[in-house]
């Protein structure tokens, strides 16, 4: 493939405002959007702000919106666009702008702090902690999360509603809560938090989060819906409620 020129429109600016700037740059074989952003940075705009680390879809740093779609820039191949197509790159919309493609994602780190920690059950009599693969498969799916926060970015509960943020943890943290709730060794109880402070009820399962997950985690089906069912079982099922008076936690 011969080198070809592309037309990129990249959002430049900060919290006070900004605009799309045009760049024309050569694209090499196999390149991804992040390569092109790096080339612009090295050749035309040394100070263009962008986050990245692994460049292989493993760290979740280079999240942005490419032609309006939330994506990891390192996993978006340039050859997926039509020749001659203008490619627009903008920062994630749900988070405050720091500069150019870099946003303030501290909301997510705050939500992570609010989740009660993993608390293991006692060891078995032989000193081991036996768990079977079939019992952890579903939790291992949740542990694939690379914290790119694209699911948070696309979630309509907070995307255009900053005011919902204090009362809503977002899909990433529903996945985290589900991973703790379904962990065979965990003994902490987070149901009250899930129902109240995490705001699970705001989610009306439109599956936007699942669609953008670069790790293909079934966020809605495997994490959010089972959590919703647990909330219903715990708080709204009269028989379970009666039983709950006599037992502690049902994993």
């Amino acid at each position, binding site marked *: 493939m011969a080198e070809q020129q592309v037309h990129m429109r990249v959002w430049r600016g900060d919290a006070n405002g900004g605009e799309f700037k045009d760049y024309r740059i050569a694209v090499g074989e196999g390149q991804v959007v992040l390569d092109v952003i790096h080339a612009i940075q090295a050749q035309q705009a040394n100070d263009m702000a962008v986050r990245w*680390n692994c460049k292989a879809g493993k760290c979740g740093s280079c999240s942005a919106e490419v032609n309006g779609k939330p994506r990891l820039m390192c996993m978006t191949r340039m050859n997926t666009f039509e020749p001659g197509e203008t490619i627009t790159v903008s920062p994630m919309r749900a988070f405050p702008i720091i500069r150019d493609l870099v946003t303030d994602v501290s909301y997510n780190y705050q939500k992570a702090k609010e989740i009660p920690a993993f608390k293991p059950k006692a060891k078995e009599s032989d000193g081991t902690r036996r768990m079977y693969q079939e019992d952890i498969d579903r939790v291992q799916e949740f542990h694939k999360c690379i914290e790119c926060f694209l699911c948070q970015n696309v979630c309509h509960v907070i995307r255009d509603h900053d005011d919902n943020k204090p009362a809503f943890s977002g899909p990433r943290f529903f996945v985290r809560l589900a991973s703790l709730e379904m962990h065979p060794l965990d003994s902490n109880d987070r149901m009250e938090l899930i129902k109240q402070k995490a705001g699970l009820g705001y989610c009306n399962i439109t599956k936007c989060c699942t669609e953008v997950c670069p790790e293909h985690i079934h966020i809605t089906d495997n994490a959010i819906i089972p959590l919703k069912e647990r909330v219903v079982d715990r708080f709204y099922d009269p028989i379970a409620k009666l039983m709950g008076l006599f037992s502690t936690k049902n994993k």
Partner: protein
Amino acid sequence: MAQEKYETHEYDVVVIGAGGAGLRAAVEASAQGVKTALVCKSLLGKAHTVMAEGGIAAAMGNVYPEDNWKVHFRDTMRGGKLLNNWRMAQIHAQEAPDRVLELEEWGALFDRTKEGLILQRDFGGHRYARLAHVGDRTGLEMIRTLQQHAVHKGIDVYMECNLQRLLTDGGRISGAFGYWRESGKFIMFKCKAVVLATGGGGKAWKVTSNSWEYTGDGVTMAADAGADLMDMEFMQFHPTGMVWPPSVRGILVTEGVRGDGGTLKNTKNERFMFNYIPEFFKAETAETIEEAERWYEDKRNNRRTPDLLPRDEVARAINSEVKAGRGTPHGGVYLDIASRRPADYIRKRLPSMYHQFKELADVDITKEAMEVGPTCHYAMGGVRVDADSTATTVPGLFAAGEVAAGLHGANRLGGNSLSDLLVFGRRAGLYAAEYAKGMSGSLTVNNDQVESFARDMLAPFESTGNENPYTIHADLQQCMQDMVGIIRVESELNQALEILQKLKQRAKNVKVEGNRHYNPGWHLALDLHSLLTFAEAATLAAIIRKESRGGHTRDDFPNTDAKFAKVNIITRMRNGEMTQTEEPLPELPDELKALLEEKK
């Protein structure tokens, strides 16, 4: 006064770097009851550990009950061509299983054996299946577990904060100085002890698995503060990086592919590794394909496939095959698991490799062979430390993980890095906390020192030069790739030194545009100092070691030399100049010597 001029924080222990070693150190220091800060250049959870794939080496004996710390010790020492610090190798092998179980205690979910225990996988240079793992994303599990644990322990975390210089008071550590990436404003820590957990300097090479963070900061800060560096000539080139397309060249392909049954082949469809079994590993390596095939299922009666020789051996072999004209058109060799294992098994064991090749190279690894070649991966050398306490030669300065030297000798075995982070990260936190508790009297920060650091760091804005930091970095990477790569020769190393001197001059004329607000051009301009320091130390040490051993291969001295088997190359920075000396290795006790002499 500097304290008032710049944002200042006071701690007992400041940990720089939040990969596995830094997180584990911070958790331990905090558990010891000292006031602890964790400072990292990226967001929390994005450090290089997140990219580790294959697993954590620990002789738990869950798959092979014969395994124990003695065998792990022996494998580590032999993998390092016996240049390892024996005491570090012993501590590492003894403590790794507890550190893995501790992660489970904190919520990690490793893949399981049928009996419900932690499953262990085969890896290069390890006699038994020894790596605790989660598919091929073990690093992610490890960093997330440590991160969540640290957050719940209430440790103060300073994210996207780049510490660049250590402050000293009468030769002791008194703090650290750097900048917030977001605002560009300076920040100062006053503290009794610093733990360096900053990783290596692999970003000085062009084809590399390392991210932008790997700029040799820790090594440089330590050297600038007067600490000894050791073994800087030993860089690991991982045998299997992606080679095509060009934009992904260098991205890591886990050794787990070979651990799980993949084999290396040249364009003549030969399993060429059988032609590259060195004398040193003959007794423990299969000589025929038949024996190698039997080994996967029966390790007691068969010897290991040469596909799983230590990384230095495999990287050299691939290099030779390509040079001999048996490489792929893109300059690599084939790594084939598609024809050897069922598609479902491959997707289950190697999900992220499957994904990576599919998305980035249009290759389905369940149907076709991968194309791979060596990529710069890991620094065995770094800051010289005390084996038990991780103390450097500067009082109050500790170092753990890739930034520290000694454990891996001349070559690191796969899987020994994650265990290193846990074992020595914990020890660094513990001994830094002890040191801080034991320190009486107050520390003062030298304002002249701080002001001179601040001036240096702002110089690129005021420069009258016109050098682009990205261009200097690219030229450095090309130089190290071409002249201080897998195969080295004196004339080229000397040439590299000349180029490095010119690059140092050019770096003084670096000019950045824009302002201090989240400005990657400025950040890179500041990183050039550490990249160049790391590169120079590596090149100088490579010139002195006139032999081939582990991750250091000299075309002009192709064999090992008994004289160099007994020494480490020590690098010191004195008055802005690097000096190097050969110093004797610590003497191995007889009972450990006996372990090494056991055959097979």
